[in-house]
């Protein structure tokens, strides 16, 4: 515990430490110490706080030491009586949450960063999101899509798409039939060609400050990622 001595300035010894946290105080103590010495140190600390101690919220952290519940109870009632502390609770470590997180399956705990829409996007409609966008349907000429991340179209792309706004050069634009009027990835613009696309899925990405369009199955950009990542 000596290593923590230099971190706070309100502590008096190794066994009791007081720290402001949030809208209250965090009290770190070692309940295996004699109760009287703890109380003595507490009184010094709380005298210094003066009126700040009144009605304050205090969280007691035993730093993982268990089995001294009666000591804790005594300390609680002592603080309430002597310094009129408002609310005293015991600190519960966050270990339980951490234990559930299995780093080999990050997608299990991943909040979605994807906006998925079903249906046809028509001329004059504009879809904007800071996330990735997935459209299950066609994007008609005259429609606009702008995303902070990737744009994936499970259908025909004939409209205008901005991906990776404002400066994500790793964004891609994917469509099962790739024939856009204009595309933009992180500020780099390319206009759609007149060539009629074959029946192949294509995607656009940035390569050396230029937008290139590739056959999706041949280039297979995501297959290069060795381990599944949450998007």
């Amino acid at each position, binding site marked *: 515990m000596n290593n923590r001595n230099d971190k706070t300035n309100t502590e008096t010894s190794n066994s009791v430490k007081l720290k402001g946290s949030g809208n209250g105080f965090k009290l770190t103590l070692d309940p295996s110490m004699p109760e009287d010495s703890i109380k003595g140190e507490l009184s010094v600390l709380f005298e210094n706080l003066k009126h700040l101690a009144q009605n304050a919220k205090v969280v007691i952290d035993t730093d993982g030491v268990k089995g001294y519940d009666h000591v804790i109870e005594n300390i609680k009632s002592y603080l309430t009586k002597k310094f009129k502390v408002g609310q005293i609770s015991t600190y519960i470590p966050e270990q339980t949450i951490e234990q559930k997180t299995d780093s080999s399956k990050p997608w299990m705990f991943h909040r979605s960063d994807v906006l998925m829409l079903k249906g*046809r996007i*028509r*001329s*004059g*409609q504009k879809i904007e999101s800071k996330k990735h966008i997935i459209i299950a349907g*066609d994007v*008609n*000429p*005259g429609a606009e899509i702008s995303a902070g991340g990737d744009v994936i179209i499970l259908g025909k792309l*004939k409209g205008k798409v901005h991906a990776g706004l404002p400066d994500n050069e790793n964004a891609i634009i994917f469509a099962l039939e790739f024939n856009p009027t204009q595309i933009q990835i992180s500020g780099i613009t390319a206009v759609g060609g007149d060539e009629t696309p074959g029946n192949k899925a294509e995607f656009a990405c940035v390569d050396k400050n230029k937008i290139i369009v590739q056959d999706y199955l041949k280039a297979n950009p995501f297959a290069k990622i060795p381990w599944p990542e949450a998007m």
Partner: protein
Amino acid sequence: MDGKILVITSGKGGVGKTTATSSIGAALAMQGNRVAVIDMDIGLRNLDVIMGLENRIVFNIVDVVNNRCKISQAAIKDRRIDNLFLIPASQSDNKDVLTTKGVKRVAKMLKKEFDYIIMDSPAGIERGFENSVVSADEAIVICTPDVSAVRDADRVIGLLYSKSITPKLLINRIEPARVAKGEMLSHEDVLDVLSIELAGLVPLDEYVLTASNMGLPLVLQKESKAGLAFTRIARRLNGETDLPIEVPTHKTGMWNTISKKFGFTK
């Protein structure tokens, strides 16, 4: 039972909204319905000219909405077709004289008196369009097989969906010969982009211009292919939903009929 309000719209101008309105209106009236066709293009009225009723206009839709006359006073009866009435637009006002509230009120009254109320919407998606679709039960979007008309129709379809109206598509001015040569979008290409239910396909027809200029109803011209197509559209609207949609073809004659039978041509 209350009548149905059908709005004919397109977004783009000059695709045949007014012709379609007068033809479908006339065809529905000939099938025994009480029909009112209403010109909502305030300031640029055309429907009266195409129907040949221009000289009989006294009151117009603006007068009706602003309570200056009754519906029966403004509705002009067509002399050739029974049960067909025209409520013309005002030529001297602009589109801002109508309010959606006023149109809604009049639409309610019209529904009591007529079986079908067909509104000819102006081009564009501004005030005039808003007024036309505010109380519509059904909508027909007219589109010609060219890229700009398809683009505008797509926009209008989106707007109609946002007003919870499910529109049907009428593709006008199809030139089968040019479609076959690949110079023109086919109706399949248009449907591929717009993907809504088809109301009908109308071929390009030289009768349309002469009939419009003379103010004759197109559906009374027996030789007019467009007139026949509009009649079939009206029949489908009037409940004959299983009447098949006829795709305009450019080949006629005995040999083609025979080869069609044997499956050599489509």
